[in-house]
């Protein structure tokens, strides 16, 4: 048993490494968009975007006012953008392009090259140094391209473009730091500075307060009804089959507000919405709805497991030997279906920590589900990263626990590699 536990733990560690790789791909590769652009919103200036990157750790230093670049010549508009570690100036139709490689140069050298250069016949560039030009004179010039990345500028004969400088932090280094912080339990802060770790914990407790009773009730009820249907068959089985199909077909999005309106708003049996002492009064209706809506799929699954066991030869033998129906059910049928029931139930537990996104939203339970949805809506990647990490770790932990529980319930399961 111990060896098995250790073996599974090692495999979970491998999975954790995989999860962290996925976190890199999702959050640090820019797959969800540049968090600085999301954070600064539509009214941002180039300086605000640069400072947001500084705040988010994408830059380790930022100088917004390096120099202003002007162009003189016939009316023409150029686009100034970063192209790798170079600056690129091109006409709007792309017919003419001019590149200034920046690698291996200092800011001073790059600015000197830009000042007086001719990007195309008839046009000449000039520079007005800003307060940062002197301070960053010896800094690597590639920082000019880094600051311009993701926010190209128009430059025309009537209007200059602002050059900034930044020291970019490579994605792999940011990723390494963040993964390290997550494994140390440091989840960081939200966009507005709220500590995420404390909030995760208090919200997880509320989600569990809703999800665990609902889960236990739903599982117990499904198991009891499944056994009853399997043993009795006949009309009861048929009625439960019809109810199960109906229950599984109903959309939770439609059913929750309907039941909420009927039981809380119309009949006034429960509070409609809220979260204040005594908290349990606000949990009763969500738990009831979750139980009622969630039991049908389990019921069908458990019923087929029970039916399969009831038709086994050893059950018929036990009955032929005079064992009572209840005893056969308890000692043989229930025990034998326990492994798949446990495997299914325990692997569903990680989802409980997240609660039900829908039920939490409709009833105002301030749990992890609502936290996650809000983070998605506001694009708060620090929260999303923490929740993803936490749920992945919960999943691995509960898989491990499910494995141990199954081995405990059925030694044959444990004997398998």
């Amino acid at each position: 048993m111990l060896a098995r536990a250790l073996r599974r733990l090692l495999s979970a560690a491998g999975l954790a490494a995989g999860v962290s790789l996925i976190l890199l791909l999702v959050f640090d590769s820019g797959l969800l968009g540049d968090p600085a652009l999301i954070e600064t919103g539509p009214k941002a200036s180039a300086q605000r975007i640069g400072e947001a990157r500084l705040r988010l750790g994408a830059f380790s230093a930022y100088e917004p006012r390096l120099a202003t670049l002007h162009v003189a010549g016939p009316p023409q508009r150029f686009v100034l953008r970063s192209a790798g570690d170079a600056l690129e100036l091109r006409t709007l139709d792309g017919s003419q392009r001019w590149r200034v490689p920046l690698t291996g140069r200092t800011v001073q050298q790059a600015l000197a090259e830009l000042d007086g250069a001719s990007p195309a016949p008839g046009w000449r560039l000039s520079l007005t140094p800003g307060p940062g030009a002197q301070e960053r004179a010896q800094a690597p010039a590639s920082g000019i391209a880094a600051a311009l990345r993701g926010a190209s500028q128009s430059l025309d004969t009537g209007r200059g473009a602002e050059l900034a400088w930044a020291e970019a932090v490579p994605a792999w280094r940011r990723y390494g730091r963040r993964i390290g912080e997550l494994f140390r339990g440091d989840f960081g802060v939200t966009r507005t500075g709220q500590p995420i770790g404390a909030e995760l914990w208090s919200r997880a407790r509320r989600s569990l307060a809703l999800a665990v009773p609902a889960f236990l009730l739903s599982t117990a009820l499904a198991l009891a009804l499944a056994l009853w249907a399997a043993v009795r068959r006949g009309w009861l089985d048929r009625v439960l089959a019809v109810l199960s199909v109906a229950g599984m077909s109903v959309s939770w999005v439609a059913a929750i507000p309907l039941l909420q309106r009927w039981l809380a708003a119309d009949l006034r049996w429960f509070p409609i919405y809220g979260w204040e002492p005594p908290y349990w009064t606000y949990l009763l209706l969500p738990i009831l709805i979750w139980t009622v809506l969630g039991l049908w799929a389990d019921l069908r699954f458990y019923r087929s497991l029970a039916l399969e066991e009831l038709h086994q030869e050893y059950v018929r033998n036990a009955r032929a030997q005079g064992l009572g129906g209840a005893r056969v059910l308890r000692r043989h049928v229930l025990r034998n279906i326990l492994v798949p029931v446990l495997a299914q139930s325990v692997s569903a537990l990680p989802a409980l920590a997240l609660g039900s996104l829908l039920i939490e939203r409709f009833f105002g339970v301030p749990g992890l589900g609502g936290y996650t949805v809000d983070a998605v809506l506001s694009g708060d990647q620090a929260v999303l990263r923490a929740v993803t990490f936490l749920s992945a770790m919960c999943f691995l932990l509960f898989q491990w626990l499910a494995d141990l529980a199954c081995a405990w319930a059925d030694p044959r399961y444990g004997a398998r590699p």
Partner: protein
Amino acid sequence: MAAAVLLLACASVLAPAQERADSQGPGARAPAARPAAARIAFYAQAQTFDPAGGGTFVDGILQQQVYETLVEYDCAAGAPYTRMRPLLAEHWESSDDGKLWLFVLRDDAHFHDPYDPPLWPERTRPVTAHDVVYSWLRETDFQSSADNGYAFEGLIAGLDEFHRATAQGADSAAAAWKEAESRGGLADLRALDDRCLLVRLARAEPSFLFLCAESNTAVVAREAVARSGRNFLNQPVGTGPFYLAEWIPGSQAQFRRVSGWRGDPSPFGDGPLPFLDELRVLFVPEPSTRTQLFEAQELEMLSVLGDAYGRLVQDGRPNAELSARGVSLLPVLPVSMSMITINMDDPVLGMIPGDEAGNARRLKLRQALSLAFPYERWAQAVRGGDWAERARSFLPAYMAASAACPQFGHGVESGAEAQRLQQARRLLAEAGYPEGRGLEELVVDLAPPDRVTRTGGEVVAEGWSRIGVRVRQQVGSWAEMQQRTTEGEFQMMTRTWTMQYPDATDLLTIFYGGSGPVANRGRFHDADFDRGFEAYQATTDAAQRDALVVQMVQRLNAAVPVIPIDFPGGTVLLQPWLKNVRMHPFQPYACKYYRIEAP
């Protein structure tokens, strides 16, 4: 087994009152016989109670219940909603050129500390001009503010340098603070004494007083910031009529009346403020739940959105059942404008310097698109009713200069759809694309990928197909669109600009060449417009400003850098016992005026 462990772990959450932060605050007075309590709901969550915390629209509203600014909008005044009232400032004066401002603070404003141990004996301390300087510097400080940007950016000399220094690292920030404090502020932002604040602006800024009413310029107490540290965003210590009694993120915030508050007179003449003993704000993301709460009389106010509108509002009035109960309706004036922004650097649609003939053709193409825009269909399919003001100009109707502005529509009666289409076809042909022949498929970027966005895209495509223009919709996440459009890699995009204050510059800034590629996403560069914009900012004469707005709008009408669609507003339902509610477009939830009247 695991479930049992979890059950035990979560059982503690059911223990009552763990989260209740309510202590013996200044409002901990003996319970009144019938406390006047109001409950309102927002769809979004509160995230911070720190004015410098970079919060959302909802955060701003909640902070205004606890904190105060120098001035506030006069909620009792009507259009154009620009009249301001004193709040922490007793009065103010400005120089003729509009650059020098002197604020004299009232002497009866106090901070109230509801937390234990209290910061001050009696839990209060008078507000001084030094607090204003500290608060504004703190809001500008890159290290202490969670926001990107600051209220008076580019406006007060020395403030930009202060911000730049604080962004260079902790040491540089400490040095900047030390220097500012040794001089009693900055040269152009300083306290003359405890009650007088001097501000010198780099230019005459018409929106300066409006900025002084923004929640991020609210005045905080240095001692409260020092005590709470990073937790200051959860422990507000303000000068307002309410204090934060409890905040459960994701659920609700509860405010209580500050006992012995100075009691400003109500602008409605019905007694000293505030009238409420308690204000409860629920965060309810689901519209159906909000509606149920209102119908069950568990909310005093309901903002009606989307599908609920058709059910609750009929013919512009509450439905029969609600009307019978005395429920009333208030329109919420728009503060945002929806538009289709055209990339003026685009070779098919834009304005290419030096190519005069091509520019004339491309202008006709843009005019044709704007004339063929399906306004009626948009109002029906996207707005789902009558709660948006159609954009007939670049400014909403309640703005002062709006009436004088030329209407959009290139000389065609805006109501005559057939006539508009006919002229659009003619312009399209003059642009070199008769019936759309020879014109490549145009691309409109849309975000986010939800039902309303997709419907909007279909409406636009269908509308322009009437003149033979083919449109491809590029639907993506908001972040994708943001990234693409900031880089200038787009042809057209749908956009909504939310105004911060009731001044034309707020909206017109998106066309100003100096605004940069993020605000001026369409990369519109027009020397005449820019001159008008700069002249507007430099003058204090109201008539001259209005004339400049008209001039700028004329330039926009002539160049068509965007196709204005509408100004989406809103509707609020009120229970009959809630009085003194005014939905000022820029200060819509002034809860200190609310009064509960017994039926």
